[in-house]
């Protein structure tokens, strides 16, 4: 296939469209913020393939995300949308965008605290409270309301909060 100038524009355009697709569990995050879109391949003017990777194996949001991507692209004029799931390399919170982490904090979820490639062991990470910014917090449970989150409590403002754990 000859890649025309138009197609290159289209790939960027597809990414711009995908910015509108939100994570169903954490609606302030787009799927680009989350880092689950691995690539976009424009097959023709009206056909596109989107490669995505699941966050966790059993994440029930994945099929909904795939459906939402399809609907969004179809509504923007694409006729054929193929969604391909990639398992390797395995998704990591290291791929989450900086703006995504800021959006999480504002939303009330503590964002991942470090890069897993640099520090592979979660260990005794200090997780600041997303409400009062106190670092006097404690882990309640490694498993929270969704697979990607742990449950914490702030010892100063006493609010429980979700922590998007490093993965």
């Amino acid at each position, binding site marked *: 296939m000859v890649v025309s100038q138009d197609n290159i524009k289209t790939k960027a355009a597809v990414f711009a469209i995908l910015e509108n697709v939100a994570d169903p569990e954490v609606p302030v995050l787009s799927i680009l913020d989350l880092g689950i879109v691995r690539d976009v391949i424009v097959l023709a003017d009206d056909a596109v393939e989107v490669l995505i990777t*699941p966050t*966790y*194996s*059993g*994440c*029930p949001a994945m099929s909904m995300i795939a459906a939402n991507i399809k609907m969004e692209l179809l509504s923007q004029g694409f006729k054929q949308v193929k969604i391909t799931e990639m*398992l*390797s*390399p*395995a*998704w990591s919170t290291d791929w989450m965008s900086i703006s995504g982490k800021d959006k999480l904090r504002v939303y009330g979820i503590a964002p991942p605290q470090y890069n897993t490639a640099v520090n592979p062991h979660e260990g005794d990470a200090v997780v600041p409270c997303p409400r009062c910014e106190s670092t006097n917090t404690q882990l*309640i*449970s*490694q*498993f*929270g*309301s969704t*697979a990607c989150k742990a*449950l914490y409590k702030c010892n100063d403002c006493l609010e429980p909060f979700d922590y998007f754990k490093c*993965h």
Partner: protein
Amino acid sequence: MYPSLIKYILQLADNSLIHGHRLSEWCGHGPILEVDIALSNIALDQIGAARSFYQYAAALEGNQKTEDSYPYHRDVRSFYNVLLLELPKGNFGDTIVRSFFFDAFQFELYSALLKSTDTQIAAIAEKSLKEVTYHLRFSSEWLVRLGDGTAESQHKIQKSVYAYWDYCGEMFDMSDAEKDMLSAGVSVNTVALKSNWEQTVANTLEEATLSYPLAKENAWFHKGGKNGIHTEHLGFLLAEMQYLQKSYPGAEW
């Protein structure tokens, strides 16, 4: 019968599915809310991994198979999970001990499968290993908490350790499918995983102030699951899990 590669993939898948199904029985019944959520999350990870393996098996087998063909349309004798995982969930301590023994095994297994020459199996292992690391931490922490807890909790959990011990040997006993796939580098030599597993178990039991069951060379253990010979419990589990598809074949929602 299935060719060895598919049988091997089904063995990996069935372990995750049956373990996930048993854990899902705790949903709404956990001793405290956080544990209920944790066990449900782990069940979801396991069933998700099983799904990836079933999708792969279906793609290889063709013949109009789908990921649902394997969990819903096979009978007991065509399931290849180890016996340890199909036993009734028991009390909370039983579930913790059984999960711990299996999590520690699955951690070693997936670590080794990262080097599988089958890239799809390696990819699923890579994905799942990150999750199994959480599972192992959870079951280890509860083992220590219950072992080094009250006299009653220690008594109960020690009993569970002895009860499930005789089922652990099967995890390391190579099935024909595992042996067949070994020379091509698809499967791993599970016998070689045993010393690391024993070390993890010994360390955690010691921290939990529990006794380590004597592991004699060639000690007897329950087996059969990997070759489709199961306890009576799997039939009851499948009867419940497959009920809808058996009553209304092909039902969708």
